[in-house]
Structure formats: C-alpha cells, structure tokens
C-alpha cells in the first residue's frame, strides 16, 4: 500500500500490512463493548480495531482507534521524525492551500436513502457511557458553509441520535460552526450540513486543524499528501464531501427547534450536563454498500480523540508560540487535550534572558491555540516534553513550590472542566479558570549550585555505543 491513503479501506490495508490492526470477529454489543475495547487498546498503546460481528447490526463493521497511537498518526501523515510539530509547522508555512477536486461519482454514493427511507437507528451507533440517554455519533465530521462566502468549515463534532431522522448538534457560538450558524440565522434560513462518518485518516487530521476563518480545512489534505482530495456534491445541498468516505448524512440545522442534549462522556473524563441544542433533520443518507461505521469514543483519557487532539494542539501551540518566542523548542501535551501542557525552551537563551520561562507561559495562554490551557509546565530543552517520566523528574528537582509557581487568576478556560468553580453556566461562554505556570527549569545564580554539579548519567559516547548495539546485549 503506497502513500497517500485515499480511503479508509487503503488505510486499513496498510495497518494490516504493518500488523497494527486487530480484526475482531467476536460478537460485540453497541452498549459499551466497543468503548471498553477502545479504552483497552488506548491504555496499552495497542492496535487499531475493526469489529465485524455487531449484535443487532448484521453486515456492519465498526472501526476505532486508527489515530490513537502516535506511530499511526505519523504513518498517516507520512512523517518520520521525533518532532512532528516542527515538521508539520514548517510544511504548512512553506505550502499553499491545495483545493480539492470535484468528481461526479464515488463509492460513497453506492446506496442513496432519501426522505422517509432515512433511518439513523439502522447505523451501529455506539453507546460510550452508561449514563447516556441515547447514543452519540462520535466520529462524525460536520461540514457547513458560510452563506456569504462559501467557506466550508469542517470539524469533528458529536451528534446525539434523537429519532429516525433527527440528531442534535452541539453548536457553540465561539466555534467556527457557531459563527456560520449565526450567519444562516441572519438570513433566516436553516443551516445545511453534511456529516461524514468514516474516511481516510488525513481527512480526520485535516478537519481538526485549527484553521483561521475563511480557510477550508480540507485544503490541508492536499498540503499533507501532495494530491488533491476528491470530493463529490451532496444529494440535497451544495456541500462537497470526500467521495471515498463510508457514510454521509445530509441535513439541515434548525434555527429555532432545540432539544436537550446529553449527558455525554466528555473529554475531561466526566459526563456533560444537559444543554438545549439545535435539532438536525436528516434528509438523505448515502453510503458504501458494505459501509464501515467509524467510532471515536472520548470520556476519561486515554482515547483516540485525546491522542489526535494532542498532536494537533502540539502543532498549533508550537507554530504560534515559536513565531512569538524563538527560544521555544518543543511542546508536548501531558494530559486531557491541552489542559496540562509542557513546553521546552532553550536553556542557553533562558540563562541570558531572565524571566523567559514565565514569559513563555504567559504567551502560551495568550495565543489562540492556548485558550484551553490550565497547567503550563516549562522545562529546559534537555527534557523530552513527550516523556512523562522526564517531565516529572524536572518537576521534582528543578522546581521549588515557594518561588517557581505563578498563578494567573480569572482567565478564559473551558466550561467542560468540572473543576472550574463556575461550572453550571455551561455552553454560552467558553469557560473561566485560573492558570498555573510551573517553572521546572534549572535556575541561574544564586540558585544554581546544585545544578552546576552536573546531571548523573552514563557518559554520552557509552550511551550511544550501547544504544547502537542493543540486541548484542540480549536487550530489545
């Protein structure tokens, strides 16, 4: 299988060749089995999963966790580097948007169900948690268009199944989908929407990129792959969707009708509350004859959703921070989207610039990509920000609680974080939090005596020699 992967099928063949796809033929239920299996593979950094025996859904297959491991994320993007943030940021900086190519036919049109034939209960939509009322689509990519400019915004959203042809969409006013919704509202027309379920992995990466307004996320597909994404027009609206996708739901987001949505197992690892969300009427369903349903459960980390978000937050935080402060070396998401993030800075630059570590922390919270951040751990560039043991070591020996922590009060947060004391106002506002900056760096004089004695490690040349001859010593 050669790059790029032009469909989910290509990607699954590749994963099979790599031995990184578990094909499960044991019967699973939609009531939580897929979620439990998904959690298991996420916890052990295990393979992607393809289930082919779904109780009550004959003929269906369900796929999860394709982008749950960093190694698979790098394969999907054809990247071989230990610093993907730097590589991707550079690629985006050097490239122009690559517009998709419209085609007249594609496998996603093999089955067309219109009007009364639409029935969402025939899809094997998985329950994630025990306390959901009805299940949510968790890997549905929402495609909506700005009625004034034609700009198409794409992003993974959750949709709750409310009837045979009814979903809810958690439209948030401060997200781009919400901005577009407000423009349809000005025109007094319901917002057309297409929901893509199951596509090649780069579609899922591209749609999660935090693109600026009026930038079509699908243009990233071409930037990453070097080819144009093939797209096809929906049956009932003008939205263009990937022609090789598995399932497309076409509908309209109602301007007035609201239904209560939730509870949903949210990314902080707790259930959301109820919210009154716009209803989405589904007018058409197109799909492959043997469609594969894609699921991406969230809930308590780790999960595929958290892993994918981590990669994209790392890229954007690095890209935006590096432009402001060149001494930033790398960014690593420690936990839960970007709520806890580690940033490494040049040790040399820090020693010649007093307060650099604090400045980096404040900058991280100030940029768009840092809106969600709550705990910022600043480390020296000899610490690998993708290695929790190294971060905790720096926290243990380069940090003094009395002088190396700064609290910023009354900052924007994320209303889903259950520790926010303002929880309960949910949804209208982005959130309200305090932020901690933890300066876990070697300090300059007069606090440097202990650091000047040197880090206790084997000699560098010996470490390298041993590393190159690992197997000879009976080690793997």
């Amino acid at each position, binding site marked *: 299988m050669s790059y790029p992967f032009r469909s989910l099928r290509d990607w699954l063949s590749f994963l099979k060749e790599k031995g990184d796809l578990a094909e499960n033929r044991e019967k699973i239920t939609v009531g939580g089995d897929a979620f439990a299996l998904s959690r298991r593979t996420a916890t052990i950094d295990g393979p992607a999963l393809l289930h082919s025996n779904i109780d009550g859904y004959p003929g269906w297959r369900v796929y999860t966790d394709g982008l749950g491991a960093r190694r698979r994320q790098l394969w999907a993007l054809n990247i071989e580097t230990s610093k993907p943030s730097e590589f991707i940021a550079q690629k985006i900086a050097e490239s122009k948007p690559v517009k998709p190519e419209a085609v007249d036919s594609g496998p996603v049109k093999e089955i067309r169900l219109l009007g009364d034939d639409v029935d969402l209960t025939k899809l094997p939509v998985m329950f994630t948690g025990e306390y959901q*009322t009805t299940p949510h689509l968790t890997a549905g990519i929402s495609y909506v268009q700005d009625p004034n400019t034609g700009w198409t915004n794409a992003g993974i959203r959750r949709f709750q199944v409310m009837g045979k042809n009814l979903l809810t969409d958690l439209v948030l006013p401060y997200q781009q989908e919400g901005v577009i919704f407000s423009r349809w509202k000005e025109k007094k027309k319901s917002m057309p929407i297409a929901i893509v379920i199951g596509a090649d992995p780069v579609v899922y990466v591209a749609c999660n990129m935090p693109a600026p307004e009026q930038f079509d996320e699908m243009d990233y597909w071409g930037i990453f792959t070097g080819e144009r994404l093939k797209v096809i027009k929906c049956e009932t609206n003008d939205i263009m969707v990937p022609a090789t996708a598995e399932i497309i739901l076409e509908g309209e987001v109602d301007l007035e009708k609201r239904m209560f949505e939730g509870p949903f197992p949210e990314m902080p690892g707790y259930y959301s*509350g109820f919210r009154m969300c716009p209803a989405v009427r589904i007018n058409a369903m197109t799909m492959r004859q043997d469609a594969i349903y894609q699921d991406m459960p969230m809930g308590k980390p780790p999960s595929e959703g958290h892993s994918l978000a981590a990669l994209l937050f790392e890229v954007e935080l690095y890209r935006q921070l590096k432009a402001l402060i060149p001494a930033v070396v790398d960014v690593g998401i420690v936990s839960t989207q970007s709520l806890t993030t580690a940033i490494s800075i040049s040790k040399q630059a820090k020693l010649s610039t007093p307060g650099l570590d604090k400045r980096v922390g404040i900058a991280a919270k100030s940029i768009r990509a840092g809106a969600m951040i709550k705990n910022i751990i600043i480390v020296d560039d000899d610490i690998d920000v993708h290695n929790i043991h190294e971060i905790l070591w720096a926290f243990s020996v380069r940090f003094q609680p009395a002088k190396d922590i700064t609290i910023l009060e009354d900052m924007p947060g994320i209303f889903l974080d259950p520790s926010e004391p303002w929880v309960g106002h949910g949804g209208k506002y982005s959130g309200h939090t305090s932020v901690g900056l933890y300066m876990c760096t070697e300090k300059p004089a007069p606090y440097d005596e202990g650091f000047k004695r040197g880090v206790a490690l084997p000699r560098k040349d010996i470490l390298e020699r041993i590393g190159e001859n690992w197997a000879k010593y009976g080690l793997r």
Partner: protein
Amino acid sequence: MMIHFKSSTPVQENLLKRIKSRNWLESNLKEIQEKYAEKWIAIVGEKVIADGNNPDEVKQKISGKFLAAEMILIRIPTGAISQPV
C-alpha cells in the same frame, strides 16, 4: 454479508424505545425536575421506575427486572437547562 435497512432487529427496537423514553423525559422535564432534582432516576417506557441518591442505589432497587438496553439511568439537574445558541 450485506447491510439491511428494511426490518429492525431487537437491538434496534430497543434503541427506538429509548428514544421514546428520552422524548418523554424532555416533554416532562419540569415536573420530573420538581420531583427528582439532584436524584438519579431510571426510566423505562414513559415511566420513572426507580430513584435514588446514586446510580448503584437505583440499580439495586430494580435489579434484574429490566434490560439495561431499554432503560435510561440519569441524574436530574436543578434549574434551567442552558442554551448555547
């Protein structure tokens, strides 16, 4: 094996039942909040079949009488439900 769209399986029927229960909960939310605010309740069909201070207490009250697939188990919040847009 081909995907079927015509007839519903028992699992799909259970989902339809849950949708009906959810709709009933939404239609009667005000009354249910007045009676069960801050409580956990179990709903089957269009009826609250048990309540308690935590989900385990509710499960214990109804142990074995209903299938999890056809039952909604939920905590009822107080106050108005927020509406982001």
